[in-house]
C-alpha cells in the first residue's frame, strides 16, 4: 500500500516535497548522463572504425594473439 493518500499528497510530502523531488531529479539527471555519455563516445568511435579503410598497416595496438597486421595482408 502506498503511504500517501493521493498523488498530490505524495508531491507535497507535507512540505518536504520540493526538497525530496529535486534531490531525486538531480540524481536521475546525473545517472542518465553517466549512461548516455560513454554510449555516445562508443557509438562515435564505432562509426569511425566502420568508415575507416581496413586496418593493418602500422598497427601499434594490434593484439599479439591475432598476429601482425602487415603479415596477414601479404
Amino acid at each position: 500500500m502506498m503511504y500517501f493518500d493521493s498523488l498530490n499528497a505524495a508531491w507535497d510530502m507535507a512540505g518536504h516535497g520540493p526538497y525530496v523531488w529535486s534531490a531525486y531529479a538531480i540524481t536521475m539527471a546525473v545517472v542518465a548522463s553517466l549512461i548516455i555519455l560513454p554510449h555516445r563516445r562508443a557509438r562515435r568511435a564505432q562509426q569511425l572504425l566502420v568508415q575507416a579503410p581496413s586496418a593493418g598497416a602500422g598497427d601499434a595496438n594490434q593484439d599479439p594473439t591475432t598476429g601482425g597486421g602487415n603479415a596477414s595482408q601479404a
Partner: protein
Amino acid sequence: MWKIIHKFGSPPWFFRFATKAVQWLLPLMLIALVVGCVWGLLYAPPDFRQGNSYRIIFIHVPAAVVALAGYYVMAFAGLVSLVWKIKMADVAMRAVAPVGAALTFVALVTGAIWGKPTWGAWWVWDARITSMLILLFLYLGVVALFEAYENPEVAAKACAVLSLVGTVNIPIIYKSVDWWYSLHQPASIKFTGESAIDASMLYPLLVNIGAFYLLFAVVVMMNMRATLLETHSNAAWLREAVE
C-alpha cells in the same frame, strides 16, 4: 587472483566481456533503481522525527557508499598499473574517476538538500562533509591529471600515485562521525548486531545500494569499452568484435 588480473588485462577479452555484461546488467540496474526509488519515495513510512525529508536517504547513502568503494577500485587499479604496468589498469583508473566524481557530487548535493529542512543549513563544515568534498577533489584531480599529460604512460603513473595517496582519506570519511563531533548520525546498518533502521526502510535502501553498485559497474565498463574503441581503432580483434 593473478589469473583474473591477467584475463582482465587482455583488451580483446575485456571488450567482449564488457559488451555482454553491459547488455545484461544495464536493464537489471534500471529495474533495481526504479524499484528502490519508488519504494523509498511512495511506500516506505515517514521518519518519526524528520518526516518525509529523510526519503533522500535512499539515494544519498547509496551514492556515498559506492563513491567510497569506487575509490578503492581506482586505487587498486593504480597499484596494478604501477606494479605490473598493465595497460588495462590505466584504462580502468581513467574509467572510474568520472563515475566516482559524479557519485560523490550526488552524495554532496542530495546531502545539502536534505540538510536544509533537517539541520536548517545547506552546508556545514562538518567532518564527514568536508572529507567527502576532499574525495570529490581527489576524483576530479585524477580526471584532470589524465587530461594534463600528453604522454599517457606518464599520466597514468601520476594518477596512480595520486589515487594511492588519496586512500588515506577513505578511513577518515568512514570514521569521521566517531572521531569528531558531527551532525551526521553514526552508521545505522551494521553487519554484526541489530541495525538501527526499521526493515520497512532498510529494504528499499538495500535495493538502491545494489542498484548503485550495478550502476558503477555498468558505467565503468561502458567507459572502458569506449576508451578501447577510441585507442585500439587499428586492431583486427576490435574490427571483428564490432562487425
